[in-house]
């Protein structure tokens, strides 16, 4: 059977197959789309035959391309939607955080130890804080929290500034989460750096405010979104550390395989971290700067921390979740 015979004999089937695949690619599968798997398998056999019989590169390339086209369509991922998102929030994400509880401890320690160390150092010696913040940083803190009255609320009084700040926080903070995750690629050093750096800087800011500004205006502002934002950052760090550890100690897998496996485990973490940070931006944009009684704002902040502890320890305990 020569190339010509082979092509001549099978051409009708191939054109039929092409028609079906094209319908799928355009998102308009016809009534006989159910035939596609069968036609696909036939085409696979044709390709093997063409390869075996050495029908030449032109034909094998053509069949190869057609098989790939069909493969892309048949093995397409059609899952998604609200149900999956709900499953992820209610079970997948807290389960992933619990599974990596050691990393949760590590990342929180890398953030909170420098935070408290620097913040408390302000009561003994303000120089550390001054060195970290620099002149510009201190001026900015003075401008926001320096006076007796609530300056942040005044800064936000102009129409639309809440929305603008919300967008700014999303861009800035979610971007930091993503970089913290990607930084894990440097054997985890990038993730640790971001956590440590933010711990130092925020600790310095808090220490400076306690020392030189009006602490109440600062703490009432940050309390509302603190749990979402800081835990979100720690979770992003966990995702990055998962990658970094896979590179450092791949176990019995080759490093590249270990990395791909780790990325699969880290995916729910970074998705959840992005979600938390986005929510933090909503709170920070629209709630934290409102002029409300301090007790209410502290209460909401504390409530946030309690909710998070409950969420991470209890949510999705009885559910088996397979992403």
């Amino acid at each position, binding site marked *: 059977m020569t190339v010509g015979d082979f092509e001549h004999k099978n051409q009708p089937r191939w054109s039929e197959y092409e028609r079906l695949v094209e319908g799928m690619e355009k998102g308009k599968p016809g009534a006989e789309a159910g035939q596609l798997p069968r036609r696909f398998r036939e085409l*696979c056999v044709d390709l093997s*035959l063409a390869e075996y019989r050495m029908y030449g590169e032109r034909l094998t390339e053509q069949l190869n391309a057609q098989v790939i086209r069909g493969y892309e369509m048949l093995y397409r991922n059609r899952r998604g939607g609200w149900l999956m998102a709900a499953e992820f929030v209610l079970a997948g994400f807290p389960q992933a955080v619990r599974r990596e509880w050691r990393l949760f401890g590590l990342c929180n320690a890398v953030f909170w130890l420098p935070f408290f160390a620097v913040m408390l150092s302000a009561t003994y010696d303000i120089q550390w804080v001054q060195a970290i913040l620099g002149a510009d940083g201190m001026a900015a803190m003075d401008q926001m929290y320096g006076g007796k009255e609530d300056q942040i609320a005044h800064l936000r009084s102009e*129409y639309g500034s809440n929305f603008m700040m919300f967008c700014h926080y*999303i861009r800035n903070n979610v971007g930091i989460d993503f970089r913290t995750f*990607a930084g894990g690629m440097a054997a985890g050093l990038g993730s640790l750096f971001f956590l440590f750096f933010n711990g130092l800087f925020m600790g310095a800011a808090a220490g400076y405010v306690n020392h030189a500004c009006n602490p109440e205006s600062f703490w009432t502002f940050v309390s509302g979104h603190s749990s979402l934002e800081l835990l979100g950052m720690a979770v992003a760090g966990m995702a990055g550390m998962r990658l970094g550890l896979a590179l450092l100690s791949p176990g019995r897998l080759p490093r590249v395989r270990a*990395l791909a496996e780790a990325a699969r485990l880290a995916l729910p973490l970074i998705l959840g971290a992005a979600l938390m940070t986005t929510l933090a931006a909503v709170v920070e944009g629209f709630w934290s700067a409102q002029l409300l009684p301090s007790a209410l704002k502290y209460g909401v902040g504390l409530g946030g921390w309690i909710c998070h502890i409950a969420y991470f320890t209890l949510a999705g305990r009885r559910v088996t979740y397979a992403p």
Partner: protein
Amino acid sequence: MTTRKLDTLQALELAEGVEIRLRVAGPMLRAGAYALDFGIRLVVMIAASLVLALSGIALGDRVARGMLLLAVFLLEWFYPMLFEAGKRGATPGKRAFGLRVVQVTGSPLTFGQAFVRNLMRWVDGMPWFTYGFGLASCLATRRFQRLGDLAAGTVVIYDRPPVMPLPATPPPIAPVPLPVGLTADETRALVLFRERAGLWSAPRREEIADQASALSGASGATGASRLMAMAHWVQVRKQAAAIPNRNHARSNNK
């Protein structure tokens, strides 16, 4: 034991029992696609800022500025992600260059893979947005994978393989039987030599044929024509073994 070949053709076996070949795309082409995507993003950004500057009169200056920040954020991180997770598996730039992103198994990307691959872009882009790390990783891996590709388990391939120029096939020759048995890969190389012979000048053809003078037992023009005769013999024999209208699924083994 054969050494690992340096080849942009990646053979994969599917569950259907057939082997497909993916053509992996190299860094040059991908850089071009990236530049195009960058241009597209720039144009979208300029258009968005113009529209928002105008609508800022109605919406309020700060709302417009906020939306612009949001647009920057989305274009920065989600532009490649959403396009690659979509049906085409490619950003507009990649599509224009005939590329697409697939899993290393050849199947389409999942959203998670598109997400991971594009977050890692930040690391690949270092130092100073030169994509130095990505390039180094591409050159160090067999399938031109940047770090994001390695983490997500993806490769960039040619969506539609380039059309091979069809040279006039040399006239049929009297088939010459192979003196020794060849492996499948060697046979394939022999047949490809015959098919592509029309693409090369005669001296080039002989130069290539001289590499296999042990097989043909001759060098120069004689060697080249004998190799082609042998390739002809292989093809004739393989194709004669196939009887029309037989059950194709059970072709005899090699």
